[in-house]
């Protein structure tokens, strides 16, 4: 195998290139050829004419030719790894309805004019890939997520019809939820938590990852969820748990129901009374407005945790309403902390990183029209002023007289009475706020816009409707509060949305603040202030949310030199103090109600409360005078 070995070295040394070649051959020996000649001084040099002596040597050929071991190509064995994807649920596509013209919602067909991966500017659109969750350890589990198509192409109106193109941050939210066993979607109100949850559930069902889902929400939001499911996942059959106990029992355990919709009260009652062995099992349980289980000892929280399930999701715009510890109850439901676990702030923050997804409008919705906040400080009418001063004076005297027997409810009662007077004088019905509202509504009616108004009291709302009907009949005032029967609520919202002559919807914070989509309203009035800025924000975000095309003007009525001014300042301070618990740019999580000490502090009653509480209210010289 080494032919160069047998070559005489002298022959090979003539050229440099040959030498270089041979020097690379392992068995080759290269020797320089030296020919020397001596020249004598006589000038006669016989050596020049003499031939160099060259010797030849005989090399015998190998007697027997040997071959290296034979080689035949053989097929290598290759190890493979593979798996099949579970069959997703197939649903019958919804039929086109003939009376489409009368439909309330105009559902646009998916845009197909451009290539799926191009935006209007012609740039390549970002694709949202599903990422395997952190806790997915097996290769098969991880590959399941890696091999799913990008959400944009999955939802591009081919296999799954989407009525509207989601925003990029919504795609991210859907992808995140899809891959999470435990997830708390805590996007700020108005960013489409409902749509993201519905789409993620839809993908779970369609990819065979879930077959039975339970969605629990507050009772007033049931119609809202039904409507949103119809809009975003028309093919999914939704079964609402309702009716008498026997029917509900049948519904809870009925097989072949992909999505069960129930309210918290029914869920707590039915599960509490059900033998444990009869409890239905779910692949996924979703809690909407999950702050409902913030108190981990409540029956609702306990029953929620007891539901047998594989995945747990929670939705809320206000994961912390009062104390960061409230998150612990949510984490317990998500099964990421042990029962009764009490994570400290650092642990909570780490858990939040893993299991909470929160985006704020400031961060993601640069294209949402601006929200213009306007605090309108109104002077009380003379009659209101008189009533207010009398009530406050009498009230404080009364409280002072009570000495140490004074309780929070006594102070609260006074606050409520004063707040009512700032809305309207109880004797004459005079109201500075109503006067201003009527003036502003006149302008809004003329411009053909719509407004929603929130108040704490249903009685105030009823009174407002009567007054506005007298003063401004063209306003087309509608009313929506807890006193309106549930069945009549949906038609009221529909009428407000559809009727061009209906310009104002009066709502209570309790009933109207959560979950409704009223983004066709450009004006929001807060007739009186709620105790908790988060609830106010919820109310405002009925209008200032995705789909809103115009700036939203938010008007808060604050009566000058009254309790309202003081409450506003305290709330503002609290909001500043607790801002950014969940991250930068978050200005809505400081949703902290007034505490007992703060309510005492409104009247500088801290010393008499005798509970070591500290007033954080503003030190207003006027207040000091009044208190004295």
């Amino acid at each position, binding site marked *: 195998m080494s032919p160069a070995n047998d070559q005489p070295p002298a022959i090979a040394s003539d050229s440099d290139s040959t030498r270089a070649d041979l020097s690379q051959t392992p068995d080759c020996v290269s020797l320089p050829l030296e020919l020397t000649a001596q020249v004598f001084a006589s000038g006669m040099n016989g050596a020049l004419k003499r031939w160099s002596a060259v010797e030849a040597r005989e090399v015998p050929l190998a007697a027997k030719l040997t071959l290296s071991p034979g080689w035949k190509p053989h097929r290598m064995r290759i190890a493979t790894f*593979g798996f099949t994807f579970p069959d997703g649920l197939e649903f019958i596509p919804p039929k086109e309805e003939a009376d489409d013209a009368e439909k309330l919602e105009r559902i646009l067909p998916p845009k197909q004019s451009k290539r799926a991966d191009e935006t209007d500017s012609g740039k390549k659109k970002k694709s949202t890939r599903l990422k395997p969750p952190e806790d997915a350890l097996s290769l098969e589990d991880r590959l399941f997520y890696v091999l799913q198509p990008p959400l944009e192409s999955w939802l591009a109106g081919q296999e799954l019809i989407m009525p509207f193109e989601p925003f990029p941050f919504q795609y991210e939210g859907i992808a995140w939820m899809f891959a999470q066993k435990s997830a708390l979607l805590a996007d700020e109100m108005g960013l489409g938590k409902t749509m993201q949850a519905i789409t993620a559930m839809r993908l779970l069902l369609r990819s065979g990852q879930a077959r039975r889902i339970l969605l629990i929400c507050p009772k007033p939001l049931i119609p809202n969820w039904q409507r949103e499911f119809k809009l975003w996942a028309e093919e999914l059959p939704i079964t609402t748990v309702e009716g008498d106990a026997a029917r509900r029992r049948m519904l809870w355990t009925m097989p072949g129901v992909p999505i069960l919709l129930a309210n918290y009260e029914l869920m707590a009652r039915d599960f509490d009374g059900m033998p444990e062995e009869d409890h239905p099992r779910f692949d996924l349980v979703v809690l909407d407005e999950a702050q409902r289980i913030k108190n981990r000892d409540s029956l609702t929280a306990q029953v929620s945790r007891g539901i047998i399930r594989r995945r747990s999701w929670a939705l809320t715009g206000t994961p912390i309403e009062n104390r960061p510890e409230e998150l612990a109850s949510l984490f317990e439901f998500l099964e990421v902390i042990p029962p009764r676990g009490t994570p400290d702030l650092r642990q909570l923050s780490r858990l939040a990183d893993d299991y909470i997804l929160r985006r704020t409008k400031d961060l993601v919705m640069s294209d949402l029209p601006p929200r213009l906040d306007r605090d309108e400080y109104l002077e009380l009418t003379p009659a209101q002023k008189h009533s207010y001063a009398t009530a406050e004076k009498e009230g404080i005297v009364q409280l002072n007289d009570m000495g140490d027997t004074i309780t929070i409810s006594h102070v609260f009662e006074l606050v409520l009475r004063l707040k009512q007077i700032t809305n309207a004088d109880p004797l004459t019905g005079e109201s500075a706020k109503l006067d201003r509202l009527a003036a502003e509504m006149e302008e809004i009616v003329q411009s053909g816009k719509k407004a929603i108004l929130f108040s704490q009291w249903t009685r105030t709302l009823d009174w407002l409707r009567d007054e506005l009907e007298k003063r401004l009949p063209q306003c087309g005032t509608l009313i929506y509060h807890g006193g309106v029967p549930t069945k009549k609520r949906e038609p009221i919202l529909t009428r407000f949305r559809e009727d061009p002559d209906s310009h104002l919807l009066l709502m209570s914070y309790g009933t109207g603040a959560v979950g409704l989509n009223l983004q066709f309203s450009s004006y929001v009035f807060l007739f009186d202030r709620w105790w908790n800025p988060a609830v106010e924000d919820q109310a405002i975000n009925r209008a200032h949310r995705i789909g809103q095309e115009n700036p939203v003007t938010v008007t808060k009525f604050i009566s000058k030199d009254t309790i309202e001014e003081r409450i506003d300042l305290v709330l503002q301070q609290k909001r500043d103090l607790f801002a950014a618990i969940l991250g930068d740019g978050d200005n809505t999580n400081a949703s902290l109600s007034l505490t007992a000490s703060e309510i005492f502090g409104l009247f500088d009653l801290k010393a008499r409360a005798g509970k070591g509480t500290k007033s954080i209210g503003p030190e207003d010289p006027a207040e000091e005078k009044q208190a004295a």
Partner: protein
Amino acid sequence: MSGEGTKGKLRLGFLTAFEVPQRGFVGGLLVTNHFGRPLEFQCTTPVQPNRTQQILYGPTLVPFIQSELIGKTLVDKVGVKPDLILTDSQQLLDLREHISIPVACLDDQVAGESSAEGGESASQISIGRHTLRFHGAHQSDEQEIEAKSRLIPDGADLLEPFERVREALNEATGTGAKR
């Protein structure tokens, strides 16, 4: 032979193979429905040719490993048989010589952008946004696929699933694929 797909359905196999430094050649086959939703995935553990194979196969080594060795093994192994196997490399086209399912290679260029340079016009068709090149010795594949390919949406990006396969192979080799 390749009519596994029932009427109105088209199963696409996305086959790719590449060399992972220090590990060897790996390949993956993702079978999807015509919308790109995954149905089955198969991949190989890394294949490392020895010195003798490297010397004797010479320049034919890579096509041999990728198509005959990896490609054929994966197609044999997969339970959900595709109606058409798409590849992202010309070298894998030779797989067609060893299996009975049509194989087509995706041209890099989007359909309609480079028809003048094609050269082998007889074995090219356009599907979705791409031009497919078939094996020269299996011209009938083209007609067989052309009718079914109408199921693929116009805007479909047929190159995208290869990204998924490559990512899955990276994930599998990174974590150590096991039998």
